[in-house]
């Protein structure tokens, strides 16, 4: 009788997919904190309390210059937020973090207090990939947390397939790569070969602090400083790991699917 029971249970559960992005984005946990904002004008003269507490050396204050925070290498531990006596670094609570250009993740200078969010792809690429994007995932030296929260997007709550985005088994079937991990030297060859196997035109997404800049493994000899030294990257999604909502926001933003939506 299990077949009938199964159908019954299924009907009982109803639709469990969230309304986002047509409805509001699901709330982040209250202790998540979201993105960071850097108001370097608030920095106290001569203070660099935030610099040594950063585990990934994402914060620098060269000489008497302005504070700079590389959101790409940030693992969002908020140690700097706690350390700053002037509240120059604050949490925004915003899940939106993805950027198209690496420099858009550098925070600090006037006008660059927060991340400059990713723009949609231009004309031809948007026409090609806007309604159907097939990605091959390459895991290259991380900790498997980014992979785990990418997999979550395939579950019924998120249902990535409804946006025409799908992860495929072969690079030959793919429109692009989603890379996680700092790229270990042992994965360098496999990553290059996988990249070459994807037909042109292709996209590359660097997911998580490791793939963007090395993250917790920055500077270790067996790994690179992220994917962009090896392949050109079209979208950077910061986090350690990024919340599934942050990943989805990045993908949809790049495909121009958030314009005019309640969850944008």
């Amino acid at each position, binding site marked *: 009788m299990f077949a009938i*029971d199964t159908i019954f249970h299924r009907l009982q559960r109803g639709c469990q997919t969230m309304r986002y992005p047509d409805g509001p984005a699901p709330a982040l946990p209250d202790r998540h904190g979201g993105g960071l904002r850097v108001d370097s004008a608030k920095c106290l003269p001569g203070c660099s309390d935030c610099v040594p507490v950063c585990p990934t050396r994402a914060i620098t204050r060269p000489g008497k210059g302005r504070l700079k925070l590389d959101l790409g290498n940030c693992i*969002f531990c908020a140690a700097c937020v706690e350390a700053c006596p002037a509240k120059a670094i604050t949490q925004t609570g915003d899940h939106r973090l993805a950027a198209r250009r690496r420099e858009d993740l550098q925070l600090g200078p006037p006008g660059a207090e927060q991340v400059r969010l990713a723009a949609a792809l231009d004309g031809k690429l948007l026409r090609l990939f806007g309604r159907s994007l097939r990605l091959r*995932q390459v895991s290259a*030296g991380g900790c498997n947390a980014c992979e785990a929260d990418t997999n979550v997007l395939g579950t019924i709550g998120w249902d990535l397939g409804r946006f025409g985005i799908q992860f495929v088994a072969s690079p030959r079937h793919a429109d692009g790569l989603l890379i996680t991990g700092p790229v*270990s030297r042992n994965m360098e060859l496999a990553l290059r070969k996988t990249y070459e196997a994807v037909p042109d035109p292709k996209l590359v997404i660097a997911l998580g602090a490791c793939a963007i800049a090395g993250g*917790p493994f920055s500077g270790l000899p067996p790994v690179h400083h992220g994917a962009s030294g090896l392949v050109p990257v079209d979208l950077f999604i910061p986090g350690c790991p990024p919340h599934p909502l942050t990943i989805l926001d990045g993908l949809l933003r790049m495909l121009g699917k958030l314009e005019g939506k309640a969850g944008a």
Partner: protein
Amino acid sequence: MSTPSSFQFLPNGSSLPWAGIPEFPAADLVQATAAELGRGARLCAWFGVPEPPGARLAAVIAFDADNTLAVARSAPFSGSYPSLTATHPQAHLFEREVWEQHGLQPEGHPWLKPVRRGTGQAPASGEFFRVDGREIHEVAVGPVHAGIIEPGHFRFQCNGEEVLHLEIALGYQHRGLEEALAGGPHPATLSQAEAIAGDTTIGHATCHAMILEALAGAEAPLRAQWLRALALELERLANHTGDLGALAGDVAFLPTAAACGKIRGDFLNLTALICGNRFGRGLVHPGGCRHDLEPARAAALLEKLRPALRDVEEAIAWLWDASSVRSRFEDTGTVFTEQAGAVGLVGVAGRASGLVRDVRFDHPAGWHRFAQIPVAVWPGGDVFARAKVRCLEIQRSGAYLEEQLAAPPEEGIRAGLEPAAPGTLAVALVEGWRGEICHAALTDGAGRFRRYKISDPSFHNWTGLALALRGQAISDFPLCNKSFNLSYCGFDL
């Protein structure tokens, strides 16, 4: 343990002066270790400590029935020593690793090759065990796999559909973590410990914190120990639920696959409720926990935990109800108890082969000294048994959480920590969701890490997967692999 041991005993989560640890010539250490393993001890870690121009060997073993660990070391030497693997296969990867890291050669090791680096540009470039014959073919899979999973290389020797031998070449995720920890703790050390295996953040971070606390001669406040124990079970619930869903998916039983994918997220969100991060990043700190679980938050957690437990119970019931699922799980990928004991399986895989071993019960430290969880064992050794153990553990972790949430200890979540003692060895074990995590750290004269050894449960268990495939149809590999669900990065370090 009725006979006197040549090892020095120590309880889980404690430390000893390095100079006081019994020292033997290497051959005698191998002999003494073999004698203890022959008496029912288990190898938790076997590693080298550089001492130019050579290195020392150090052994950490566990006497589960006696609830104690024991350590011994060799005198410094270089060159070769008689292999422990020759009599005790559970040492085989440890000896390969020591050879790769320190150049100490185990004489008589049956299959000596690097563990992580390989001889060429990638780990799969080395030599593989081959079966010859006109009907034999070889299948090579990876490092890049079909799904969203970590990289590894699998080399099958097949006769038609039947797998005669599987050899697993890992190392693609190698980040040099042990080397990075040496000279530490550094500012990045805690985040690196959390990222040894991201799905075991709480397990590894707790183990690392216990090491630093043991080296400082201190304990985290009770409330922090309580919270770590809760977070460890939430981590177990999330991963076991995800695994059962993935197993269901691999036999095309979609109702449970779909439901468990969602419920796994519900459990991750409970960890995020405590600390903001779904994987528990930033929760455990040496000396305590960074966040507290205040009464209101604990009540909210319990309120969300109960329906998630109900949902997962129901989703698993559908799975057991389907005869098509049972027939795919039963007698698939069997690892017999003798094999499991010989290769030293730990955790879910070990318990599913009938081995009664669980750090929470055998070597209780932290909160587990006051509140235990019964060990979940199922003797079959097949995919069914590994699924069943997970199912039992979900029930028991759920009950444990409900019980512990009702009785929180006094306030006080974080304490300052003295600097680590110099010239000291600390050992800590934690039962992560996959099994036994072992960290061992030795400090130098200034109290910095001189050597930091990490043993993820996957290091013990990958050999179990290779054994499970013997005589199995190659098409069952995904199902067998999922039933172990081992960590690549935890192994590769």
